[in-house]
């Protein structure tokens, strides 16, 4: 990643999140740049998931701001749905829609949102059909890419964990997002399926997709990231390129954590 032409994509300033009396995020300042791959590591309960979920407002911030697409999306008055289209999210538990086929899972949001843009209920039948056709073509292309086009009409319940997660990733891709957020994308997988999912994420990284990845896979984080954030106690305790953070950690808490997990 070229240091000179960094353009900020997400700018987080003084982010605070509380659950009741528990302060989970205690003033986070962080900027994710276009094309950057950032991994977040840290002990359980340090607030990694919460931070990631705040980025697309699945959790509402209690303080601070998050600038994305020229607006402070931490402000509740902002139309968050408009911004979420540009931020794909991949969950630990896949969260494919149980009541939809694989193809429908991928097409649902593109079709619905494009029809809405074309006038919603007032859009002509031909327009709607064209949008559906287009979205279907794109979805099939994505399925071919991950070698699962024969599962297009299957329901998620019939798939393996690895297949589910790869479909969840292309579902996020179908919106052409500017950034992908991953929350422990391989933690719920059987060991033999971790590889296929990590390979897909790596492929996307190589294509230049901006990514924020919460992970316990240290080897993967080191390989794929431009930068690693170490979170502890609701703050980012250390932020550095993988070689530095793994090779020569500055913060004693980073050292302690790494000595336990490596």
């Amino acid at each position, binding site marked *: 990643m070229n240091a000179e032409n960094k353009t900020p994509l997400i700018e987080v300033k003084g982010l605070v999140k509380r659950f009741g009396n528990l302060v989970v995020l205690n003033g986070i300042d962080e900027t994710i740049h276009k094309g950057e791959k950032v991994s977040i590591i840290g002990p359980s309960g340090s607030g990694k998931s919460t931070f990631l979920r705040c980025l697309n407002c699945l959790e509402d911030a209690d303080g601070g701001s998050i600038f994305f697409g020229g607006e402070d999306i931490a402000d509740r008055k902002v139309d968050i*749905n408009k911004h979420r289209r540009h931020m794909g*999210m991949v969950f630990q538990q896949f969260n494919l829609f149980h009541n939809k086929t694989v193809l429908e899972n991928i097409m649902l949001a593109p079709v619905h*949102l494009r029809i809405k843009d074309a006038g919603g209920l007032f859009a002509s039948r031909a327009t709607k059909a064209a949008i559906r056709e287009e979205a279907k073509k794109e979805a099939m292309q994505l399925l071919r890419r991950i070698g699962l086009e024969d599962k297009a009409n299957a329901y998620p319940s019939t798939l393996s964990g690895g297949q589910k997660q790869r479909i969840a990733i292309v579902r*996020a891709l179908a919106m052409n997002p500017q950034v992908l957020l991953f929350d422990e994308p391989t933690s719920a997988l059987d060991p033999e399926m971790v590889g296929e999912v990590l390979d897909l994420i790596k492929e996307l990284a190589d294509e230049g997709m901006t990514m924020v990845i919460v992970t316990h896979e240290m080897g993967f984080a080191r390989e794929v990231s431009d930068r690693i954030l170490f979170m502890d106690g609701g703050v980012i305790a250390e932020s550095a390129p993988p070689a530095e953070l793994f090779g020569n950690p500055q913060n004693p808490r980073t050292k302690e954590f790494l000595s336990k997990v490596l």
Partner: protein
Amino acid sequence: MEQASKKQGFWKNHWMDVLAILAVIALVILLAVSVYTRFNFAKKWGIFYNYFVTNRGYKDLLTGMKNTALISVLGLLIGIVIGTVIAIIKVIPPYKKVTRYAQKVCNVYVAFFRGTPIVVQLLVGYYILLPLIGLSLPPVTSCMLIFGLNSGAYISEIMRGGINSVDAGQLEAARAVGLSFPVSMLKIVVPQAIKNILPTLGNEFIALIKETAIVGYVGAMDITKAFQDQGSNSYEYMIPYLVMALLYIVIVAVIAGLVKLMERRLAKNERRK
């Protein structure tokens, strides 16, 4: 060999049940015979037959069955729509003032319809409220509406349970791809919720069919009213009322059977997952 031992096992386990059933059958026959002779059954049957077949009895009953079906089916459908809307409103995160007011209104609605007898709702609705707002609907239509409003209150609670039974990740995933809260609910959460509560909705439908027996209060012809009329017009109540009870039992049994069947098929689907 195995068959035989199974059979033996059956007798061993169930001889008391069989005995009990036989005893009940014997009792019923005894009762029937004594009723037949004491109440001059043959004459009563003649009166019933005469009114039912050669007079207008069967026509009333056909109308009555049609109306009972219409009121309970449409009542259920209206109830599902209202119940879904209320359930969704109740699970909106209450950030906005509008939401909190809407939730209060829903609470009052549910409390009202669950807290008063349906007969009272029917009487007040038909004779007072509907005329007051200038809606002079025929009795059957009014009944559909009032039963729909009533079952909406009950179904909203069932639906809320169904929505809560759907994994929270489903809503999050829908929101994360940019769908709004209502769209996410309607396209992803509610369909899964409905699947979870289908058997309960079946039971609600059965309850509704039985409750519609009071629509005669506002002059709607239903199954109950048809037999009541037959009784009072022919001065012979026993057979019409017995047939009426039997008819309700048969209808309820058939629908309960269908609900069971549906439950079993859903369970099978679940296992395939």
